[in-house]
């Protein structure tokens, strides 16, 4: 079976031609490589003229395979595949060799570049002759969408899709939607009351006819693929019957058990054993915390049940499971905050008046544990001096190397709130002041005007060990003031640590459940950091908000809207193409050894007991090829990356390798 291969060497202006002898290469390929019937070089293969060159040759010369030596296939594989397609050739019969990113741009010596370029072209020419025509599969897209996480980002995404007329399932782990934004007092730089701008959206979500809100629920299992995912959700038992509950709150009032609220109040305030996280919670139904409920602990009390006017308390309630069919999934799972106890020299957890930024938000919040009064841990004393320590757990090789994006602005905001509510002095200890977005630098100017103090230096230690006069009973911040060039010890009544944003504690596990991966720092991995920040490498799964990386509220909202737009695009198309790069088990060679069975993270491989062979569900197969490589019977083939193709490419790549100085004996005959 002889193929007619056309080889096209791109100059890419001088990007390739400046280092590689492109004319010589084209000539060499035409003369030396078996199967090549046409071999050209051209200035810009990706231009329409360049593509037409390919199309003409296919039609006129009857080419059956095409090799393009140009830039990276990640840039133009689609372009050249389309050119082939336009000329009536199956797009998978085209192969690219990267002569730019892999040769001309990285090689010093011209002669060496030529040798390497020849190897890559030889590899591509040998490989392409073993390519097979492949057709992508078209599958329908279910117009329903799952949004996981109902903080501001998830809320935005859900509302946009719902407003466009499509069904949304919104799953939230906590009893109420709202996320971290519900805990804040004011938002920078506008100083809007956080709850005031958030709660209208929360209420829209709660009332929207297209949104099914599943709160106090988690996704347990995801099966399927883009266009048709099947998701199992576990709705945790509230012990309150939602259909009967009016949200009157009498159960909460009558509950005798008070516990520290570790979640919403960050340990600064109390709630009851049956509770709503905050007054404007959506949905309004309370939740019973069985770990602290007297009935569940001792079998007594039941005050909530006694006083509930609609009999909505049900101590026997069980978790329920729902199976949802959706076409796309958006993850907006947010973040956790850095545990400041990991930096013992800052004294958090040991020195009472060292606070984290989230704790300080609750202090400032009028609905918070101190009704909005900025006071020390004793609940009474007003601080006269407050230190704001930047970069606690951020920009630090011992903890997190990244910048958390929002803390500088939050510190400025705290500075303003302190000066607005108290007569205290407030000082920021910073490395840099990061105020990039709209209105941010102006906000910094404003704080300078308002009299906030700034010291450029990363705080070394916060201590209560007084050494100098004036330090008794104070928290001493030890810092190198880099603008003054001096070490300083500055006493304060209160220290606030601007803690880093971190990925959720279970981000990796959650990612695996949805089939996406996390970066080394634990944020979900986007498809392309510059050009595709809300898509992931798994079709149909989108990410937005801080779960993709630290960012402020405007950026989170923008990403939520972007993810929603992508999903709406999929829905309006109605179908999606799945690449045909999948594996096949050839039953006649399969002995049913089951080695492959647990090698697939997508559960695409099943074992058929009666037939005694394994089988691949190609709709689930993502084409990684791991099972192809693992099969001891070599019974599995991988489309477009099969053994023969890869070995042929190897043979081309090593076209000039010494094969024994005296020539090898008769080569091994490959059994049929």
């Amino acid at each position: 079976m002889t193929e007619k291969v056309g080889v096209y060497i791109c100059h890419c202006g001088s990007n390739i031609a400046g280092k590689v002898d492109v004319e010589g290469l084209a000539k060499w390929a035409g003369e030396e490589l078996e199967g090549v019937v046409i071999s050209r070089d051209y200035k810009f293969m990706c231009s329409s003229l360049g593509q037409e060159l390919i199309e003409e040759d296919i039609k006129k010369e009857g080419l059956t395979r095409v090799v393009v030596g140009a830039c990276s296939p990640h840039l133009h594989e689609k372009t050249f595949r389309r050119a082939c397609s336009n000329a009536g050739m199956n797009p998978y019969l085209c192969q690219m060799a990267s002569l730019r990113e892999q040769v001309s741009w990285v090689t010093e010596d011209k002669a060496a570049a030529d040798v390497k370029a020849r190897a890559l072209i030889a590899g591509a020419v040998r490989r392409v002759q073993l390519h097979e025509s492949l057709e992508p599969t078209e599958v329908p897209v279910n117009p329903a969408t799952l949004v996981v996480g109902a903080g501001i980002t998830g809320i935005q995404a859900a509302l946009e899709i719902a407003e466009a007329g499509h069904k949304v399932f919104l799953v939230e782990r906590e009893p109420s939607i709202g996320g971290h934004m519900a805990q804040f007092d004011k938002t920078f730089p506008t100083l809007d009351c956080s709850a005031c701008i958030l709660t209208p959206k929360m209420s829209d979500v709660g009332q929207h006819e297209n949104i099914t809100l599943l709160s106090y629920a988690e996704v347990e299992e995801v099966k399927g693929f883009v266009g048709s995912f099947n998701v199992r959700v576990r709705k945790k038992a509230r012990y309150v019957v939602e259909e009967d509950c009016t949200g009157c709150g009498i159960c909460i009032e009558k509950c005798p058990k008070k516990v520290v609220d570790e979640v919403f109040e960050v340990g600064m305030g109390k709630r009851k054993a049956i509770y709503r996280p905050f007054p404007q919670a959506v949905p309004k139904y309370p939740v019973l915390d069985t770990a602290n409920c007297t009935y569940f602990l001792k079998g007594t009390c039941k005050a909530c049940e006694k006083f509930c006017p609609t009999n909505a308390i049900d101590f026997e309630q069980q978790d329920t499971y729902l199976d949802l069919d959706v076409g796309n999934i958006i993850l907006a799972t947010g973040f956790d905050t850095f545990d400041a106890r990991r930096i013992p020299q800052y004294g958090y957890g040991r020195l009472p008046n060292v606070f984290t930024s989230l704790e300080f938000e609750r202090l400032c919040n009028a609905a918070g544990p101190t009704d909005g009064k900025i006071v020390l841990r004793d609940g009474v004393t007003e601080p006269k001096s407050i230190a704001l320590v930047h970069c606690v757990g951020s920009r630090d090789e011992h903890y997190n190397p990244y910048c958390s994006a929002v803390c500088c602005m939050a510190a400025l905001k705290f500075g303003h709130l302190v000066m607005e509510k108290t007569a205290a002095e407030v000082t920021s200890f910073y490395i840099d002041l990061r105020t990039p977005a709209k209105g941010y630098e102006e906000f910094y100017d404003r704080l300078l005007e308002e009299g906030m103090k700034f010291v450029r230096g990363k705080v070394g230690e916060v201590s209560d060990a007084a050494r100098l006069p004036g330090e008794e009973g104070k928290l001493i911040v030890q810092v190198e003031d880099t603008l003054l060039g001096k070490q300083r010890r500055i006493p304060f009544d209160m220290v606030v640590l601007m803690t880093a944003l971190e990925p959720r504690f279970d981000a990796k596990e959650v990612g695996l459940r949805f089939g996406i991966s996390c970066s080394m720092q634990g944020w979900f991995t986007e498809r392309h950091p510059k050009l595709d920040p809300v898509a992931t490498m798994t079709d149909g799964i989108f990410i937005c908000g801080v779960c993709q990386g630290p960012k402020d509220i405007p950026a989170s909202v923008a990403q939520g809207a972007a993810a929603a737009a992508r999903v709406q695009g999929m829905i309006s198309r109605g179908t999606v193409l799945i690449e045909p790069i999948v594996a096949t088990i050839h039953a006649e060679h399969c002995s049913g050894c089951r080695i492959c069975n647990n090698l697939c993270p997508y559960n695409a491989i099943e074992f058929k007991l009666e037939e005694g062979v394994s089988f691949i569900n190609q709709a689930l197969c993502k084409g990684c090829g791991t099972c192809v490589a693992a099969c001891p019977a070599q019974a599995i083939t991988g489309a477009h990356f099969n053994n023969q193709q890869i070995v042929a490419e190897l043979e081309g790549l090593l076209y000039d390798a010494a094969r024994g100085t005296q020539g090898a004996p008769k080569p091994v005959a490959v059994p049929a």
Partner: protein
Amino acid sequence: MTAKPKLALYWAASCGGCEIAVLAIDEKILEVAAAFDIVLWPVAIDAKARDVEKMADKSIDVCLFNGSIRNSEQEYMAQLLRRKSKILVAFGSCAHEGCIPGLANLAGREAIFDYVYRKSPSVDNPQGIVPQPEVQVPEGTLHLPMFYDTVKTLDQTVDVDYYVPGCPPEAENIYSIVVAVIAGLKGAPLPPAGTVLGKETTVCDECERTREEKKIKAFKRTWEIIPNETECLLEQGLVCCGLATRAGCGALCPKVNSPCIGCHGANAGVVDFGARMMTSLASVIDSDDPAEIRRIIQEGIPDPVGTFYRFSLPHSLLRRSALSGNGH
């Protein structure tokens, strides 16, 4: 009466087991004797190489050649029998893949002679005499075949028409090939040249043990455990090569509670048996920690070449270990 078709059997570097295996077809051997005129069979009849040299090319209808090629005489006979035979069959694992003689590819002539003739504990050779290819004696010059550094398979030496795998091949398979050849000589279609006569799947297909998904925490040696008779041997920790070995033997060894060692060779289309064993066993090691993975492998498989290439070393992609002195 038309002349009977001619059959030749030859043994190169082998143990003799394939010769005995031919006899293991029991009384059917009489059918063979009746159907064929046996022109060469050194173990059983007195024909000589020079008789074969005198035959016309392609006058032997079928030659069953067992044993691998590791000296000049064996290579000569392979070339001779190829010339004189219509159908040349690589009979048994030695001819097919190299088999046990192939493990000598972990050494070379110098090292082998040095050990066998000088260093082995039972040797009494104070003058350190080793075989020479040529020596002068009063009667003339005596020659011995030249001993090669590297064992070759039959198909690395001459073109081979068919392969019968196994160490030794099973009686039913031997009989089937005889029957197929007899039919073929009468005009029935023969399989395509290069076919390995046997099944196209692996030993697990013939093994009746139950199997689950594989997760290996340790590889056990055969002296470490007595496996049960019902579960897959690999799941019990033993390295069973049945995963990658061509079926056709009826999974004889697993049936008697012994792991398969791979004598039937690789499955159809496979160029390197050891690679299949390495990849499948490694893929299901139940660990993600490089240090633990390394420990599991080093403790459980102290002799990887002997385990993965016991029968197939010469036929593998690398064929032998590195040889100092380049084989010159």
